[in-house]
């Protein structure tokens, strides 16, 4: 972490330098919280995909569905093979999987993101702590110079 060596000497800085360090930290925190929100959204999408895959039961074979061509244009279609789905695995590759495989794939994805969210949350917590420490320090310095 970049903030470790700064943390050592941070008591020697004057108020304006402290404000600068704090601005930097806040920028980093902003970036991290944005990433956190993005990951959350991705996780929700994967979860929805898994749930949709679960909906494609064998009992629904031959049922009519509306296939979206655009956001507002749909055409009717019939479900001919609910046992298989095409899964986007990234970088332009799609894999034909059975329904069960697809569900496993998506729950693995959700789990993968969950671990990432955990580490990200820890980092965000540490950054917040650092900022809080800086705020305290700035106030202490201000009080000192006032008296």
């Amino acid at each position: 972490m970049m903030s470790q060596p700064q943390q050592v000497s941070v008591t020697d800085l004057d108020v304006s330098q402290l404000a600068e360090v704090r601005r930097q930290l806040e920028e980093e925190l902003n970036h991290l919280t944005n990433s956190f929100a993005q990951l959350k959204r991705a996780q929700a999408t994967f979860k929805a995909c898994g749930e949709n895959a679960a909906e494609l039961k064998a009992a629904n074979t031959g049922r009519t569905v509306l296939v979206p061509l655009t956001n507002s244009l749909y055409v009717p279609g019939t479900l001919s093979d609910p046992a298989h789905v095409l899964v986007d695995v990234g970088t332009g590759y799609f894999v034909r999987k059975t329904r069960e495989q697809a569900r496993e794939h998506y729950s693995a994805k959700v789990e993968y993101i969950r671990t990432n969210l955990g580490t990200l949350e820890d980092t965000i917590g540490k950054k917040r702590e650092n900022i809080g420490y800086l705020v305290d320090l700035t106030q202490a310095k201000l009080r000192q110079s006032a008296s």
Partner: protein
Amino acid sequence: MSLQARLQTASSEYQKLQADLSNAVEARQRLDAQLSENELVKKEFAQLAPDNVVYKQIGPVLVKQDQAEAKSNVETRLGFIRSEIKRVETQLQDIQLKSENKKTELGEIQAALQQAAQQSSPAAGTPLPSIGA
């Protein structure tokens, strides 16, 4: 006045180096994202059953592709990205070194300028040795 001119060229060069640096950092981050995405795909391909058909998206269509071919494609892409990362990494170091040097040069010129200002007009008579820009 030659000191002023040198300061100007040195500082514009320094700014250019800083811009190059941020470009290189951006490229490095993009490559990292690509690397991790391709690695995820590779992991996904590694646990495919033989009956899982792989399609490649080319424009708006999906084209059926051999599993082995797709795997080797991802492998070559990974190799390419890794060599790109190495290239950008050396580029980054190069730019960092250059901008450090420029920074010290800038500091020297500023110090010389201050000296010249203190000595006022007599300093104008002795031209400083020019550093090749």
